[in-house]
Structure formats: structure tokens, C-alpha cells
């Protein structure tokens, strides 16, 4: 087994990718992809299978490299808690924008992401969270008629 974080990471990434590629490959055999040939053409799954096979091979290569890795170097040090909070905040923000619409969801989302990142001045953050999405909305949606999510709940 590899000693360092780098090697372990390569091994894991490689295996995950190989499994995903193989699963997709198997999927290409399902009934929905049968036969829409024109003359002289290959099937619609020819090229995808070629690519998926290559991905599987390369991933196994990566896993192999990770297995045999002798380096003790690791991955960069990360603040897991802050990362998890930020990612969670972005997800919540996206869900809110989708269900409640941009005007409600985005300010909340911006605020949450800022909080998660640790911006210290909450008042300024709150003000920016409201002002920035609003300005963008006024300019893009009202003026330039760009399409914005309007929320699926109402």
C-alpha cells in the first residue's frame, strides 16, 4: 500500500474513475441504444465506448501508479470544516434559488457562503448579500432581459 497521501489519493481517484467508466460502459449495452444506423455509419455508442474504455484503462493506470508510489508527499493541508461549510452553503444557496427564485434565494446564498468562508463583518456581508444580487438582477433581468430562475414553488 502506498505510504504517502499522494499515492493513496491517486489510488482512490483511479479506482473510482475506473468503476464509474465501467458502469457507464455497461450502460451502453442497454436496450435504448439499439440500432439507429445510417448506411456507412458506426453505431451511436461506438465512440462513447471507445472513450469509456480509454478512461477505464487510464484510471487503472493511475491507480496502479498510486499503488506503486514511493513518495511520502501528501495532499495540501485543508481546513475541512470551513470547506464543508462553504460547500454546504453553496448547495443550500442553489436549492433556495431553484425553489424560491433568484430574488429570495440568492441573497441568502451569498450571505451563507460569506459566513462559511469566515468574512468577519456580518453587517457589511448582509448589506452586500442584498445589494449585489439586486443590482445584477436590475441590470441583467430588467434591462437586458436575461433569463433568471423564478422559483418552482410559486
Amino acid at each position, binding site marked *: 500500500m502506498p505510504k504517502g497521501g499522494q499515492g493513496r489519493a491517486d489510488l482512490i481517484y483511479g479506482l473510482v474513475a475506473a468503476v464509474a467508466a465501467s458502469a457507464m460502459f455497461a450502460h451502453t449495452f442497454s436496450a435504448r441504444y439499439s440500432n439507429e444506423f445510417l448506411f456507412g455509419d458506426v453505431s451511436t455508442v461506438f465512440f462513447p465506448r471507445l472513450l469509456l474504455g480509454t478512461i477505464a484503462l487510464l484510471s487503472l493506470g493511475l491507480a496502479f501508479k498510486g499503488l506503486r508510489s514511493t513518495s511520502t508527499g501528501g495532499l495540501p493541508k485543508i481546513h475541512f470544516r470551513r470547506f464543508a461549510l462553504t460547500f454546504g452553503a*453553496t448547495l443550500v444557496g442553489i436549492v433556495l434559488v431553484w425553489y424560491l427564485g433568484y430574488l429570495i434565494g440568492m441573497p441568502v446564498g451569498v450571505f451563507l457562503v460569506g459566513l462559511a468562508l469566515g468574512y468577519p463583518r456580518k453587517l457589511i456581508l448582509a448589506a452586500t448579500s442584498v445589494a*449585489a444580487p439586486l443590482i445584477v438582477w436590475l441590470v441583467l433581468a430588467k434591462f437586458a432581459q436575461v433569463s433568471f430562475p423564478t422559483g418552482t414553488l410559486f
Partner: protein
Amino acid sequence: MIEFVPQAFAVAFSFEVLIALAVGTFCGIIIGALPGLGTVLGLVMALPFTYVLDPATAVALLLAVYVSSIYGGSISAILINVPGTPQSAASVFDGYPMAQRGDGALALGYATIASFVGGIFSLMVLVMIAPQLAKFALRFGPIETFALIVFALTTIAWVSSGEMLKGLLSATIGLFLALVGPDAMTGQIRFHFDNLFLSAGLTVIPLLIGFFAVSEVLFQSATLKDAELPAVRSGGFKIPPWSEWKKRIVTLLRSCGIGSFIGVLPGTGATAAVFVAYADAKRRAPNPEDFGDGEPSGLIASESSNNAVSGGAMVPMMALGIPGDGGTVVLMGALTIHNVIPGVRLFSQQPDLVTQIFVLLFFANILMLVIGGFGANLFSRMLKIPTTLLMPLVFMMSVVGAYAIRSNPVDIVVIAVFGLIGFLLRLNRFPPAPIIIGFVLGSPLEVSLRQGLILTDMNFLAFFASPIALILFGITGLILLNLFGAGRLVGRVFGRSEPEA
């Protein structure tokens, strides 16, 4: 056609046209700089405003947005490591390191001037040899296009900074992602798992936003040291000294040439052209190891080629009525609505209009240089807020940009999913560019391959019968041989664990 120039200049100097150019340039730069919007969306936004304008003013506005939005993407690429447009994806490699070590103003100077040179170079190409170039472009049928794309894929080697295996893997995944959605050859929908929204496939901007912008937000969250530090410490605008330019003139011109040439050939697009130019510059440089670490040549190659594509893409649009890239599709639609029908008949029936368009393009580039130069200061100052405040705003623009292009919720999901994947890959030293290269080239690669197979009755060897294709395959082969040096192939790919810088 030269006889129309004085009149064209007179029109260009009229009040409305100048205002249109100025407004278009200013807005274009901002649209380019805000991650997630992009050139195509910028043109789509400008379109309704042109209805009430006369053709010259309308074209002025659109060309200004077109040209300056390409440049605008470099601003955020350099200052916050997030490409504002897909065409600036290669500018982060050297632009951001330059900014980090305090040379941000210099980087912006390089980017602005290189963009200007790229634009003017391709304009000259457009003016002088558009019809002939268009005729040459026609000789690139499916087989030749396939060969070109295979060649373009070799650029992965130069943007993988030592992690060749990971670069290849990312690129192949990118190629595969491009296949999700309708198959251009049969119309059958692939890999959508019966989801209506997925049946439209994925597009490049949400992928780019997720992979570069959102993953940057996440990366900052994981590694940021001080919450109070401003995101942009060095900005502004500084014109790099002539001595620095002199060393890089050849790179500059070659990148302009590559951008113009690839822009003329419909099918590959600006993003691919930029990487080809970058790879070429790196390959020929005396100091390839500095690329990716703040070597100005890398930035020059990227920014001059992406603007050069603009002029190149207008060649088939104007000479044949066939749009060269996403931006020219909208441009052509806009021109049509204003009764300017690009194509063979335009050159013969309305040469004065053609001259007018050329002159306006010239002015658009000039204004981009001027306003860009003065604006760079403004933008840098605006971005001098703490990273922890800036990143949420990047997140906001990501969501807006993802949905704006085609109102498809898949795109919003994409930015989250690929934000996470991008973060994980970045953590494990995967180079970020190959997946974008693969994605952009995936569909044209497959389509040209299959069209070629239909034309040659499934005989792949017949691909080598085309002289253009043969030359391209040959160059590709040489590059690969050179890269790997026959015997060291295996050792190189499954390399030692120390990546090169």
C-alpha cells in the same frame, strides 16, 4: 473597395456610432470580466437594443461587445484566477501567478496590448484575403477537420504541467462529457437517463464556471490563510517595456496567426485555438518550465490568439454566410435582422457595407485598447475586497451565468457538481485545462470522424489520402514522437512522482 474607406471613416466618426462603440466596449469588457456571462450572452443581451438603431450603429455596438468581451475575460483570469470567458481559460496559467507576485498591472498591460494586436492582425487578414481564405477553408471537409482536431488534442501535453497521465485522463473525461445529449449524427439522445433537461446535453460555460469559478471558491475555503486579505493585491495598468516585447514578438505573431487561422476554419472554436497557440508558444520557448508560473509569453499567446479568432471567425461569416463560432452566429443573426446579409452576395452587391464593417471593427479594437487601459485600473480597484467577500459574489455570478445561457436547470446543477469535482481534482494535482479542451473538442471530433467514415465507406485508411489531412497527421505524429521519445514513452507517462513545475 478602397474607394469606400473615406466614407466609412466619416460614418464611423459620427456621434451615434462613436457612442455605440464606447458603450459597447465598456459593457463588453464588464461582461467579459464577470465570470459566467461570456461573449455569446453579451451579444444576445445587446441584440434587442440594436433594433432601433440604423445598421452602422447597430453593427458598431455589436462588434464592440464582441471584441472587448474577449479581452475582458482576461481581467478576472489574471486577478482572481477565474477566466471570465472560456476563451481566457489559458490566461489563468500565467496571468494569475504574475498577479500573485505583484505584477498584476504588468499582466494586464500584456493582456490588453496582446488582445489589441490579435484583433488588428486578424482584421488585416480579414480585409486582405477574406475571399481567398474562405475558399481555402472550404477544402477542410470532415476528414481534414478530424485531422486538425486530433492535432489540437496534442496540446493537452503542454497544459498538463508534468502530470501527463492525469492530463490525458481529464481530457478523455472531457471528451466523453461532450457526448451527453443529442448525437449530432442521428439525433438520438445519449446518456441522459431519461431526464428531459439532460437531454439537451451540457454546454461549456457552466462547465467552465464550475470547474474554475466554483472550485476556486471551494479551494479558497479550504486553503485561505487570512480572511481579511484582499483578493487582488496588485492591479492597475502598466505598459510592459519594449525590451520585454522585443523578445516575444515572434510568439506574439505566431499566436495571432494561429488564432486567425483556426478561427477561419469552422469547427474548432476559440477555446481550442487558444490552447493550440499556448502549447505552440511553450513548445518553442527557451524556457518552457517557466510557463504556468508567470511567464508573459504564455499570457501573450493566450490573449492575442483569442482576439485573433474574432477576425478569423468573421471570414467565413462575411465571405460565405457561414458563421465561424458561437459569437458570429449571433452576429450574423443580428446583421440579417438589419438587412445586411453576409455571404458571397454581400461582397459583390454591397461592398460599401463590407468596408463599413471593416472600419468599425478597426475602431472597436482601438477603443478596446484605450478603454481597457484606463478601465483596468478601475476594475482592479473594485476587486480589492477581501477574498472572503469576493468569493460569494463569484458564486452569485456563477449561478446567474449558468442559467442565463439557456434557462436549463441542469446547468446550475453542473456548476455545483463540477465545482466539487474541480476542487477534488485540483487537490490531487490534476491540471484543470485538459477537461475543457476535451469537452470543447469532443463533439466536433466524433462528428467529423463519423462523417468521414460515411464518406469513405468505413475505410479509415482513406483518411490518409487527403493531402491536408496527411500533413496534419504527420505533424501530430512528429509532435508525439518528440514528446515521448520512442523508448521513454512508458517511463514518461507513468512518471516519477515529482511533477515538473
